[in-house]
């Protein structure tokens, strides 16, 4: 009984922030000390989705950025990780992949910044994409690292002896088998980029207005209703992914 109550209160505590944000995005007037908004409105949603294009533009920009990053990371990580996993210096390489875990992305951005300015990559989409790539690629390589094991190597060799060329082996054996790893890498890279603020702001010079950048500018303007709305847009894709990804993970077994 006690355990049930605890479980329900846990669920409530987890869901509450979502409900709270939703409420905030629907509020028009909410002065202290009212616990609930005094006036409700759909206007913020209507404005941002249909009239003023700012939030909508950010949404598409963020989606474009995160999807491009996820695609790029998945392809690079797939081939680089194979190289690393079968290399003599695997341990050493894997140690390097710790860098983004221990260095905060914004500090990474600070030390990269000079080179991005010189290469004319500051303040534009491509620059932010490349900066995020440096940060997200090691995460992708870590995901694939466990995938390239002795078992898979034997399967690949077996397909060679059965007459498959390297290309055929890749297309008919390795890629189908790596599907769960690729999906996982894609979603994870997507989220890394989707959540990123510091690096994007620093390399993008505030000109690449992703959703997280928008949230900060709304907070700075003390525009809480729009900030809450942008927050909800930020949470939505991860929730969809969570629902799908758990399923995908179960399917992969």
């Amino acid at each position, binding site marked *: 009984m006690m355990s049930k109550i605890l479980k329900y209160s846990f669920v409530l505590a987890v869901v509450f922030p979502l409900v709270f944000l939703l409420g905030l995005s629907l509020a028009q007037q909410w002065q202290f000390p009212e616990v609930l908004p005094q006036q409700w409105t759909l206007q913020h949603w209507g404005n941002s989705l249909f009239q003023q294009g700012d939030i909508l533009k950010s949404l598409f920009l963020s989606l474009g950025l995160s999807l491009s990053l996820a695609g790029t990371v998945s392809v690079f990580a797939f081939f680089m990780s194979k190289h690393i996993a079968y290399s003599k210096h695997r341990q050493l390489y894997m140690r390097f992949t710790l860098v983004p*875990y221990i260095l905060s992305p914004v500090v990474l951005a600070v030390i*990269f910044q000079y080179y991005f300015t010189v290469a004319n990559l500051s303040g534009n989409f491509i620059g932010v994409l490349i900066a995020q790539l440096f940060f997200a690629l090691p995460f992708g390589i870590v995901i694939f690292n466990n995938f390239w094991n002795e078992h898979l190597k034997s399967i690949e060799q077996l397909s060679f002896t059965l007459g498959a060329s390297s290309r055929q082996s890749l297309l008919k054996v390795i890629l189908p088998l790596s599907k769960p790893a690729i999906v996982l890498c894609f979603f994870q890279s997507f989220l890394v980029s989707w959540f990123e603020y510091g690096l994007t702001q620093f390399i993008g010079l505030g000109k690449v207005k992703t959703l997280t950048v928008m949230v900060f500018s709304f907070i700075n303007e003390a525009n809480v209703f729009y900030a809450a709305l942008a927050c909800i847009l930020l949470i939505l894709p991860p929730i969809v992914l969570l629902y799908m990804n758990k399923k995908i993970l179960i399917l992969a077994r």
Partner: protein
Amino acid sequence: MLPVLAGLGYALSYSLGLTGLLSKGITFEYWQKALTSQSLWASFLYSLSIGLVSVFISLCFAVSMALSWNKSIQQGRLSYFIFLPLCFPATVMAFVVLQWLSPSGWFSRIAFELGFIHSLNDFPNVVRDFYGIGIIFCSVLLITPFFTILMSNIYRNENLLHLENLSKTLGASTSETLRRVTLPILFQKSKMTLLLFVIFVMGSYEVPLILGRQYPQMVSVAIVQKIQKFNLNDIPLGFAMSVLYVILVVLVLIVFGKPSRKYLKPHFK
């Protein structure tokens, strides 16, 4: 790796006065300034303590949840709710915490309605406060789900259920088993991952940017602020600080060993 080294090289040379707008030849002035600056060390210590406290509190929650709900975490509907907080970017979580804990925030309104406080100013200062309570609260919300999944994975992988039963057949009581078997194993197996998270919280940027105050400042915020300032003398100082930060983190890793991601990594057959 190469770009990191190149970046570090630039930051180092900037901090030594070799490059940059105010460059006037090699000088240790900025390093001297940085190393003797009280605010810099305050920043590091402050970040470290926030990291340690957040990890410790999260750990307590995570262990209790993992142990009492072990089955439902791995499968069933509860598992979705455990994962749900992972959908919150740090930015959003910090915003939510700000809206809850600030003096005009939701908790303050509830306290007012219940008659605990009589005006905005009565509500205790927990965001942008000296002790970083807001930052800690937010960090705990952010990392507890990771820890819960981590602990529950260890519990399953290390066959803890069998070990617990074994310990009970050897005559240990439930609390003795917890103290002598379960908790030591969980800690032993997770300590390197915990280290990773201490460093992670130390380096966090968005959360202290929203919930922190001017002094003391978390490291990342301090570095960025120095570099973006109009005072050109602060820029080399910021670079010196970022190099120092990298060196310190690497030192910690050399002293304590390699942080482990074993139980957070996906497994493929």
